[in-house]
């Protein structure tokens, strides 16, 4: 008897993603037919047209039409976008092909910080007070009128690139000039009209958390709640450590999750992964960002789900396996994260310059509880600190019985690393 055809997944992978290996290997383990679409052609696309596709990520409707043409020959059962831009394209394709996914309007609102704030505020989700300003405005006049402390943000750049805190008018003027320089870089300015605007919002004091979840039929299922033990008080907002489970008391965790659910609903998200950043203080939770995509970088490796079905084999399921299963309508294993504490450190950029050598990797890996140290920057790469930069030189992963022990291991491993910059 012939085997039933495998469901085909259309995976939208921008060429600058860290996520390729995790998603491609997860699809391979699950035995699904995979077509990878990127914004630039693969050298193998002509030889493997069933498996590789180029889509216009800058024009979601055009990309949806391209995917529709592709699907006339090879039916697509599910679509996933792994970053903010690809998530909008995935939504457009899902709508065009009648697949599980988010409305395009919801994905667009999740991608654009001003649109997102407006929708969330309109529907009563707690967000910082915000204003939208153009790059051409009178900056000294603006600096005299805004409320302090405040945070200046670009509308779309990721990884806190260009996000700067200002505590008074001189700092505001300097921050505005610095952000303008970033937005006027040719590769940014060419991205669209959004690069001509700056979001100015109140700085929300208090610790920050990250919420990872999977939305199924509009309902948020929590996959992980991460503490960020290093204060993110500015002036720049480069992230470092994520730890789970959260050490917040249960009522606070519950309030954070409810806020995330309310935000997802307010934006109209119906299906797929979300990654949200929230702050928590005496007032309660504040929604800072919500993206319709999974956690970025290599950080997803920190999440493992107990008693998963690894497709052909057994063992813990990865975040990517859950997302693929959901997109294709395959049975989902438990969405409960494993019981052990886990954490990841996004290694801070040690300074500006060209990376010449990284010392101490073996010693860092030898720290008890440390599972891996991954250096993603290559030798000869220019390291750019925040707020202009957005690339971490690497990641450290640890797992243990308590979040405290994991945090200590991550810091100990980081102390053993030495970056030689020329």
């Amino acid at each position, binding site marked *: 008897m012939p085997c039933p055809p495998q469901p085909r997944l259309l995976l939208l992978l921008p060429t600058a993603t860290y996520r390729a290996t995790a998603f491609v290997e997860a699809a391979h383990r699950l035995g699904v037919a995979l077509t990878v679409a990127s914004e630039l052609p693969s050298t*193998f696309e002509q030889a493997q047209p069933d498996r590789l596709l180029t889509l216009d990520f800058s024009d979601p409707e055009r990309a949806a039409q391209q995917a529709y043409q592709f699907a006339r020959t090879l039916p697509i059962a599910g679509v996933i976008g792994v970053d903010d831009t690809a998530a909008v394209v995935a939504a457009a394709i899902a709508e065009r092909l009648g697949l599980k996914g988010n409305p395009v309007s919801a994905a667009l609102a999740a991608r654009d910080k001003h649109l997102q704030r407006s929708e969330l505020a309109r529907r009563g989700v707690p967000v910082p007070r915000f204003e939208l300003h153009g790059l051409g405005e009178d900056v000294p006049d603006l600096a005299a009128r805004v409320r302090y402390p405040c945070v200046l943000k670009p509308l779309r750049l990721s990884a806190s690139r260009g996000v700067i805190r200002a505590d008074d008018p001189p700092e505001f003027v300097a921050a505005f000039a610095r952000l303008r320089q970033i937005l006027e870089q040719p590769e940014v300015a060419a991205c669209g009209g959004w690069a001509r605007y700056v979001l100015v919002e109140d700085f929300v004091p208090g610790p920050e958390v990250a919420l990872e979840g999977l939305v199924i039929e509009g309902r948020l299922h929590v996959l992980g709640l991460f503490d960020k033990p290093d204060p993110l008080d500015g002036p720049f907002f480069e992230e470092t450590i994520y730890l789970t489970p959260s050490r917040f008391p249960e009522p606070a965790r519950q309030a954070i999750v409810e806020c995330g659910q309310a935000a997802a609903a307010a934006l109209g998200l119906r299906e797929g992964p979300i990654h949200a950043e929230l702050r928590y203080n005496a007032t309660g939770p504040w929604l800072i960002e919500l993206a319709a995509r999974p956690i970025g970088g290599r950080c997803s490796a920190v999440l493992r789900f107990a008693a998963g079905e690894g497709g052909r084999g057994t063992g813990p399921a990865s975040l990517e396996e859950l997302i693929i299963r959901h997109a294709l309508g395959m049975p989902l294993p438990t969405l409960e994260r494993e019981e052990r504490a886990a954490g990841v450190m996004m290694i801070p950029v040690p300074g500006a310059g060209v990376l010449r050598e990284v010392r101490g990797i*073996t010693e860092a890996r030898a720290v008890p509880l440390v599972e891996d140290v991954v*250096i993603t920057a290559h030798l000869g790469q220019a390291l750019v600190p925040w707020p202009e930069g957005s690339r971490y030189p690497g990641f450290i992963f640890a797992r243990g019985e308590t979040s405290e022990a994991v945090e200590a291991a991550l810091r100990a491993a980081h102390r053993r690393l030495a970056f030689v910059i020329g």
Partner: protein
Amino acid sequence: MDAEIRITAEPIDTARCKFLVSLPVHSGGVRRFASSEAAQGSPLAEALFAIPGAEVTEVIVSGNLVTVVKRSPAPWQAIGKSVGAAIRSVLASGHAAVAPKTAAAAAPSGVDDDALYDRVAELFDAQVNPMVARHGGRVELIDVQDAVVMLRMAGGCQGCGMADVTLRQGIEAMLQEAVPEVKGIVDITDHTAGTNPYFAAAKK
């Protein structure tokens, strides 16, 4: 001698991990062991298959690189220490870590690896490498053992953020079509050492 041997673990995923050793482990090409039976006579492979709780299913040794594949969900942090101890112990013994490739070892499953090697090499020369060369890359065929192809990426492919897409969606797919007897593909590239990747990743 132990103190002179430095071993760096590079997990690929929960099942596979590469161990880069500061001393040569095996200089006679690539050896792959797909079972404890096949490992007999090769002290390092025997020791790795015998690690308690690891459920090792495959060992590949090439130059300074040892790749271990396991079935156990145990983290590499725990298993890796046993792997490191086995490597150090075998190297300290002064005996060959891996027995030379024999005719019997070359074809335990009846597959003619030499013939497969020639066909895969032709495919790489005629089609794969001209394609990856457009991105400044190169793919070296290292060996074929038990119908499993071992390769190494270089140039723009080494450390490229899309290397796995090239491997699975390009090279593996072409092998499936042109040389369907090939049962698998193993990338033994040290991607962390790539200095000029065609696509570099940024957090998103």
